């Protein structure tokens, strides 16, 4: 059995790879609507030269540096999330205990994606530059982190509920747990307040939605990439299959 240190190093490695893949998705996919949104911002600044536009992008850093920073952000966040994911995986004593490690890793990452990326993307969709009032950023951050915490609580609660219902036949247990999880997510979506900022009229809706989908593609790459790579690294059967052909040759 792998020690905690071994699990942690695999998590950090998998997180680095997944973060790099997500950063590349950001570079190729997300940068397209970001450029369109920055054009909207520039047009706005050109129309009202006297008005204070809140933030001056590209004053501190050039656009090229910020694009590199975007990829680097995904890599660093990937490394950190990989370490957290490995710790959660090592501590998860109820999560799909009867399944192989690869399945446990991928399902745990999918659940984390649902709680930490998909749920906030539904309730508080990501916004490109030129959207968002600087005065409400603290409030929006609290709502965003709150919805993530509540989502993680639903994941933990579902896993706990499943571990308490082992006396039920598997199909009934799965149905009960799924219904409970849906109920939890529904309560979260209804209980949390609506996003406070209106979308500015000069932001084209296709730029907005291109950006939101592209952002979701980046977070999905990060989380599912992490689950798959970590699963490949942690599952002993992956190493066994590479040893098999050699054994067959020797025989």
């Amino acid at each position: 059995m792998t020690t905690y240190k071994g699990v942690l190093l695999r998590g950090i490695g998998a997180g680095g790879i997944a973060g790099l893949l997500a950063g590349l998705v950001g570079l190729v996919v997300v940068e397209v609507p970001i450029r369109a949104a920055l054009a909207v911002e520039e047009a706005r600044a050109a129309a009202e030269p006297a008005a204070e536009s809140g933030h001056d992008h590209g004053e501190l850093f050039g656009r090229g540096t910020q694009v590199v920073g975007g990829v680097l952000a995904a890599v660093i966040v990937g490394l950190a999330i990989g370490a957290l994911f490995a710790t959660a995986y090592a501590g998860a004593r109820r999560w799909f205990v009867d399944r192989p490690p690869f399945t446990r890793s991928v399902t745990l990452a999918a659940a984390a994606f649902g709680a930490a990326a998909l749920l906030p993307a539904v309730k508080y969709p990501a916004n490109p530059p030129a959207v968002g009032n600087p005065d409400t950023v603290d409030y929006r951050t609290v709502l965003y982190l709150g919805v993530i915490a509540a989502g993680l609580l639903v994941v933990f609660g579902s896993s706990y509920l499943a571990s308490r219902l082992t006396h039920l036949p598997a199909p009934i247990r799965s149905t009960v747990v799924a219904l409970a999880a849906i109920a939890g997510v529904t309560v979260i979506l209804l209980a949390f307040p609506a996003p406070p900022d209106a979308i500015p009229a000069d932001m084209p809706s296709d730029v907005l939605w291109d950006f939101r989908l592209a952002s979701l593609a980046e977070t999905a790459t990060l989380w599912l990439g992490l689950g798959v790579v970590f699963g490949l690294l942690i599952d002993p059967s992956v190493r066994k299959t590479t040893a098999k052909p050699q054994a067959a040759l020797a025989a």
Partner: protein
Amino acid sequence: MTSPAHHLSPPIPRWAYAVALVALMVTWLVLQENGIALGHAAESLHEFFHDGRHALGVPCH
């Protein structure tokens, strides 16, 4: 209660919590820091990781 899963998971040492704390802090600095910890220097951090913050769906000004 003896869980059937115990053989699956290695014991988690105490320093693991320190690792988790560092990982959370790193994530905070890259995605959230707007002046609480670093004051004015946070603006450089914010602007450098600006595209990454937007792309990862984090609320931004």
